[in-house]
């Protein structure tokens, strides 16, 4: 495929949810750096705000209240594009360059090249890409302009507790593993650019236990598409072969010794 990734050079996040205090500095810093408009939201009886990613909200803190053996626990999860090593969005995107991979392993997007087909919405294992009034893709681009210039992304820069840590992916994973933290996203989808050290099973955070590209999308792009091209040329080949071997049914042909014309 056109999407190749150099694992050793990958940069990404390690999100240590135990350190997150739900301050949402990451949300604010992201809006500021990426010049994203504020969304109007409504109070629905929770601190979580906004309640979902929007075309102008690239990352947010999910607030998860749960009852664990009689005690209310509050957990925070930074939700955003995971910058998958095997990215479903890039697999299906028909417009070269609309979604692209940087040398740091970031999945960036270019609205000028987006043709508004919204295939990426269907192919994302995490339901991340959003389309706004401009009918173009938007999602976390990992501040690829900052990262390309050797800086850390705005969200990680703003995080006061180092819950959002940005750096060389392999180094951060090694350190987290040395600290005996269970890692989510180390190998799934050819390694997620955003890996998590979670405090509980991924399902508690609303994350799929074993994330993968949706089955229909896999069958579409990796099975039916190549077989279809084969079938197309195979059909043409078969027709040509028929023409030169058995040949056409000529209407005035009585030369084969059999009666077929009833003339």
């Amino acid at each position, binding site marked *: 495929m*056109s999407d190749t990734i150099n694992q050793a050079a990958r940069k990404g996040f390690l999100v240590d949810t135990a350190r997150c205090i739900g301050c949402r500095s990451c949300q604010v810093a992201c809006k500021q750096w990426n010049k994203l408009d504020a969304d109007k939201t409504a109070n629905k009886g929770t601190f979580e705000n906004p309640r979902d990613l929007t075309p102008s909200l690239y990352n947010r803190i999910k607030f998860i209240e749960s009852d664990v053996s009689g005690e209310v626990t509050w957990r925070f999860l930074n939700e955003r594009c995971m910058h998958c090593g095997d990215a479903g969005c890039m697999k*299906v*995107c*028909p*417009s*070269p360059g609309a979604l692209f991979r940087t040398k740091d392993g970031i999945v960036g997007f270019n609205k000028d090249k987006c*043709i*508004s*087909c*919204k*295939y990426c*919405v*269907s*192919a994302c294992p995490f*339901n991340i890409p959003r*389309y706004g009034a401009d009918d173009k893709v938007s999602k976390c681009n990992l501040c690829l302009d900052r990262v390309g210039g050797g800086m850390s992304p705005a969200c990680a820069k703003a995080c006061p507790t180092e819950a959002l840590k940005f750096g060389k992916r392999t180094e951060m994973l090694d350190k987290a593993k040395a600290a005996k933290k269970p890692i989510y996203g180390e190998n799934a989808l050819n390694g997620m650019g955003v890996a998590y050290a979670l405090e509980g099973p991924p399902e508690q955070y609303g994350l799929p236990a074993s994330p993968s590209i*949706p089955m*229909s*999308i896999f*069958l*579409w792009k990796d099975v*039916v*598409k190549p*077989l*279809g*091209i084969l*079938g*197309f040329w*195979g*059909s*043409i080949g078969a*027709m040509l072969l*028929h*023409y030169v071997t*058995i*040949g*056409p*049914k*000529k*209407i*005035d*042909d009585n030369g*084969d010794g*059999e*009666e*077929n*014309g*009833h*003339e």
Partner: protein
Amino acid sequence: MNKYIERFSTSERVLHWIVTGSFFTLLLTGLGLYSRLFHGYFSLFGGGQVAILMHKIMGVVFFFSSIYMFLNHKKDVSTFDDGDWVWIKKYGGYLTRYGNHFDIGKYNPGQKLFAVFIAAATLALGISGIFIWFPLFFPRWIVQFSLLFHCLMFVGSIMFVIVHVYLATIGNPGTIEAMLYGDVRKIWAKKHHPKWYKEVTHDNP
């Protein structure tokens, strides 16, 4: 004596070419969506967004014209008689050079199968197309399945269409005239559709 008889009326021919035209426009506008390999086909229409718009418009044209065409011929293409079964058992005589004689009405079983398949594919492509058109208004799994199914039905259709075009042109000389001028030669009709020929000429053989 007139050498020709009418096979398709003017309105039938025009309808057929509307279906054909919309099908191939759908093919060309859809190729760039099928795979990045065919991205260049978008430039025929001035870019991907225009191609998608044309694909939607032509999809509506194809859907209604194709369904209408099927309904016009529903009776002829959905019943099989004894002559048809003989044709099927001998693969329509297409696997041998030696002449086979089949007692075939207006359409042979291959044509009937093609008509029924294209009608089913039209429905399938149309319905899955709606979900792909408005992906944000439907559950993700429906859209994901529609993308797969739309592709699958397209592949089936294009393969069948290739066979259809071959058999209607160089594979059976004289056939294309039926769709161009509407008239076919009588010897053509007697060879390919003898039962139909008898039916339409019974009072004036």
